[in-house]
């Protein structure tokens, strides 16, 4: 029972308050200016990418896009806690995590622009592509963890999912098998309070999402998802736990979806601006910037340089993406199987001719 009772404190672990004041002693890594600046920079880069992606979509140059506005700390914190030999299984709102893992901005534009090459990352070769069917990446994460155990690799499978995802059977079956098989897998829930139009309070009668870990005999934790230090620290601990052979963890990160669900959504249909406004006060970038400024002398110049740098990186990547010619039509067949079966030759010929 020990493991399951641990989650009952509904307290939300945070390292910084909304104004950026440390809450008690910070974790070791968070006392290093360079580390904090790296995390901050990645959050800014993520937000810059996000804004550009929305702009491209609005002008018809990108497909439907899911903004991560206000949730940058989760992806960035998670990926900063991970090692190269871990594997990330992202959902569709985890741009920050993908960027930190080494997926390039150009690859990300390609993916959201509707080009499969965007999933053929040059960087984290074993990371999974974005997963669209909600929660279906979670059983796969258990499978990756199983392969790691089997091969004696020291890695951990880390999957991200939303609050809505916790209602799916997949989530639960995966969590249960992680528990039953004692697998090195960490599930991080981005509880951004919304699943399209459904508020978290209607998604489940649970007080917390972390308590769902109780159903699998796993430890669950609640973290302030606007606090990148807290996210990273919680994931770091969960990864160490898993790497030590102690099994998986469910981490609920509390955040807020400041934007629409996707560019195809209009959140004003189901929530008021007044509901959203207070959450701007708690958003993750301001918080870490305040802390950096107060505790590490982060300057206006540094900030400006960072913003300019991110903007130019993102613009360059967007230009490269836009300049890239689409694949030839028969690319839709070429990677379906390792070797094209004969059955598909007529289609391949048609596509070549067409």
């Amino acid at each position, binding site marked *: 029972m020990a493991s399951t009772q641990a989650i009952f404190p509904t307290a939300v672990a945070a390292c910084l308050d909304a104004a950026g004041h440390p809450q008690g002693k910070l974790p070791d890594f968070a006392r290093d200016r360079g580390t904090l600046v790296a995390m901050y920079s990645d959050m800014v880069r993520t937000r810059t990418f996000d804004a550009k992606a929305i702009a491209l979509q609005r002008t018809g140059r990108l*497909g*439907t896009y899911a903004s991560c506005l206000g949730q940058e700390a989760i992806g960035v914190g998670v990926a900063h806690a991970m090692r190269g030999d871990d594997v990330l299984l992202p959902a*569709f709102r985890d741009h920050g995590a993908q960027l930190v893992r080494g997926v390039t901005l150009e690859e990300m534009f390609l*993916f959201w*622009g*509707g*080009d*499969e090459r965007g999933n053929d990352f040059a960087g984290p070769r074993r990371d999974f592509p*974005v997963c*669209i*069917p*909600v*929660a279906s990446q979670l059983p796969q994460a258990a499978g990756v963890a199983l392969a790691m155990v089997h091969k004696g690799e020291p890695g951990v499978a880390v999957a991200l999912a939303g609050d*809505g*995802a916790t*209602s*799916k*059977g*997949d989530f639960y079956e995966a969590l249960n098998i992680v528990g039953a098989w004692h697998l090195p897998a960490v599930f991080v829930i981005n509880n951004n309070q919304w*699943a*399209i*139009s*459904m508020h978290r309070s*209607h*998604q*489940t009668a649970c007080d917390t999402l972390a308590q769902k870990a109780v159903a699998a005999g796993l430890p669950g934790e609640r973290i302030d998802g606007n606090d990148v230090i807290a996210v990273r620290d919680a994931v770091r601990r969960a990864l160490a736990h898993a790497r030590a052979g102690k099994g998986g963890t469910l981490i609920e990160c509390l955040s807020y979806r400041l934007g629409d669900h996707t560019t*195809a*959504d209009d959140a004003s*249909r*189901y929530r008021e601006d007044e509901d959203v406004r207070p959450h701007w006060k708690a958003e993750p970038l301001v918080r870490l910037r305040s802390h950096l400024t107060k505790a590490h002398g982060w300057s206006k110049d540094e900030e400006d340089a960072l913003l300019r740098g991110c903007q130019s990186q993102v613009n360059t990547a967007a230009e490269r993406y836009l300049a890239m010619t*689409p*694949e030839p*039509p028969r*690319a*839709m*067949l070429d990677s*379906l199987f390792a070797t094209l079966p004969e*059955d*598909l030759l007529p*289609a391949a010929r*048609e*596509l070549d001719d*067409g």
Partner: protein
Amino acid sequence: MAEMTMIEAIRTALARALEDDDDVIVMGEDVAIDGGVFRATDGLVQRFGAARVRDTPLSETAIAGVAIGAAAHGLRPVAEIQFMGFLYPAIDQLANHAARLRNRTRGRLGCPMVLRAPFGGGIKAPEHHSESTEAMLAHIPGLRVVIPSAPAKAYGLLLAAIRDPDPVVFLEPKRLYRSVSEDVADDGAALALDTAFVLREGSDVTLVTWGAMVTETLQAATSLAAEGLSAEVIDLGTLKPYDRAAIRASVARTGRCVIVHEAPLTAGFGAEIAADLAEHRLTSLLAPIRRVAGYDTVMPYLRLEAHYMPSTARILDAVRSVMEFA
């Protein structure tokens, strides 16, 4: 009579059904305050209340299972799966339960539910938002599969589906949601299920299709007419059980058949139609039966999507090849 898009016609039919029968409820992800991601249910919760227009948690298995339980206990649930790509987790409930409940209880419990799902590509949607897996569903005994191709048909067929005492999967070609409008009378009149629609009469070749592909197929028929070829265009309307008689009769007259669907070729529903003709109308056939279908691959992401979708040109090529056949 009012001019309506297909999405408006669906909404109007849902409102009519909710109005007419207290046992009708609407449920699904984002169907209430948001009005559905395509707005099919817009305004319904305001009009009929949150008890009858229900947002579900994000769980497709539960959506289908709850609909079955509710239907068996006397309601007429109209459940929505947000996109057909997310319907798979509901198939167990559909195949193992909805489609069987009446049969295995020898009529004691029925399952008058409707499962709506937008389907098909061509709107440059993200991955998994463009599937056409109607053939998988049409293989399940005990299930009806209904696909409207225009606003008035959507209205009449949806009312028929809701009133039908048995389970119906109602697949809505999302490419047509807003692309065409026509006059629809909100008169509560249902259209007959299991009955094909002859969209255009013709004598040289029979074109059989359903859903969004009626657009390209009718375009092809128009082009052919300009060339002096008379194409009959049949819209299945109901895929299972489908109107074999209508197709056989048409092909008996024309002697030629081209079947058009967006789903992948192999084991697509076009195969069933061709097979039925190869058994029952072989001697009428003056030329091979051609299927113009999606390629046997995953619907590509949006940059290549247009190359996947069967085009008017591909239909015309197929028709010409069967016309030239001698």
